[in-house]
């Protein structure tokens, strides 16, 4: 009996909806046709945003201290160019050290270096003299050598704030001398040891300015950022000294 009543009830409900109609909102069709027609292509902003994101990612990558210790061994002599530092105070000190290593025997090796781009400067007599007076450098950390170097430079003020003249020399030739001089004497296969070296190498080839686009200190296996010069961003660790 209950069952029959349910069936009757259900049928009554069904009948109520038979052929029933309700008018949808007037603008509903517009929404449907809008979704059916293909949308106009998105304009440029998406691509600009993608480009901006890429630039930010690269910048962050460069700013982060490089952690890789992977050694890439390249036998090319130009590797030693990582010793080039852009800061005058340091460079000045370095130059004599390098010069000291360039004994007369080294001159022909300089000739054979294939990847040199920097203009070569002949050693002046005075520089050769200085070189002869220098003790052999065993470390490429130049700061230690400083007092001796400065003292031998007769006309040069003994202060670390080096004279302009010497800076200019330093800037012009380090890539050259260090190539020939340091390579055979201490590290046969120094190579590009880490990412910092690699970056320094590439930057040196491209950027001939005194303050490089970016520089890394690569004395130990963990390179650390030394300086950046991207126009509006300038950062230099060593200039604090």
């Amino acid at each position: 009996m209950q069952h029959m009543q349910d069936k009757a009830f259900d049928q009554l409900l069904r009948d109520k909806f038979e052929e029933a109609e309700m008018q949808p909102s007037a603008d509903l069709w517009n929404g449907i046709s809008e979704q059916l027609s293909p949308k106009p292509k998105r304009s440029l902003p998406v691509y600009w945003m993608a480009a901006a994101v890429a630039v930010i990612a690269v910048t962050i990558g460069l700013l982060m201290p490089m952690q890789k210790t992977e050694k890439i061994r390249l036998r090319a002599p130009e590797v030693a160019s990582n010793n080039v530092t852009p800061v005058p105070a340091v460079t000045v000190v370095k130059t004599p050290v390098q010069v000291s290593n360039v004994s007369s025997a080294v001159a022909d090796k300089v000739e054979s270096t294939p990847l040199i781009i920097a203009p070569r400067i002949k050693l002046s007599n005075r520089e050769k003299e200085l070189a002869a007076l220098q003790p052999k450098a065993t470390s490429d950390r130049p700061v230690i050598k400083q007092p001796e170097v400065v003292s031998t430079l007769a006309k040069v003020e003994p202060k670390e704030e080096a004279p302009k003249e010497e800076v200019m020399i330093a800037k012009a030739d380090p890539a050259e001398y260090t190539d020939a001089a340091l390579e055979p004497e201490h590290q046969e296969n120094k190579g590009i040891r880490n990412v910092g070296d690699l970056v320094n190498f590439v930057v040196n080839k491209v950027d001939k300015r005194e303050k490089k686009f970016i520089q890394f200190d690569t004395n130990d296996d963990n390179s650390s950022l030394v300086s950046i010069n991207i126009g509006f961003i300038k950062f230099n660790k060593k200039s604090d000294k």
Partner: protein
Amino acid sequence: MQEALYRQTAPKMLVVCMRYAKDKMEAEDVLQMGYIKIFQKINEYRGDGAFEGWIRKVMVNTAIESYRKNLRTMNVVPIEDAYDQPSTGFDFSRLGMQDLLKVIQKLADGYRVVFNMYIIEGYSHKEIAETLGISEGASKSQLSRARAILKEEIIKMEGINYATHAG
């Protein structure tokens, strides 16, 4: 051509959507989704059976899908809503479709969908259980509760209507 089809069939389909939805806004959302599907899949219509039947089927499926998507927000049914009403005879002659819709829309979502699928669309409890991912027993009990609530509400409404007409 699409618009003509829409104009011709939408009023009936809106009623279908209204039965499954809580209110007209929700119903029109489903209606819109359903028509977009219909126009995208219109090639799939094989021409067998009534075209309107096919449209209705797509619309019902869209409504059930929408219910399932909203399932996580489904409200728990208060137990006092579900009791059996002493069975009496029904006089439906004065009950309007709009009133009936109001009563159906007041049902808990789970009751409403089972009610629609079983009583109006004619699905079996087995099909309902499979479609909604519930047991057949749950489908049956939800149906009987939905029925009980509807009867009670309709009787109440009839009483009000009667009083209004008498006064």
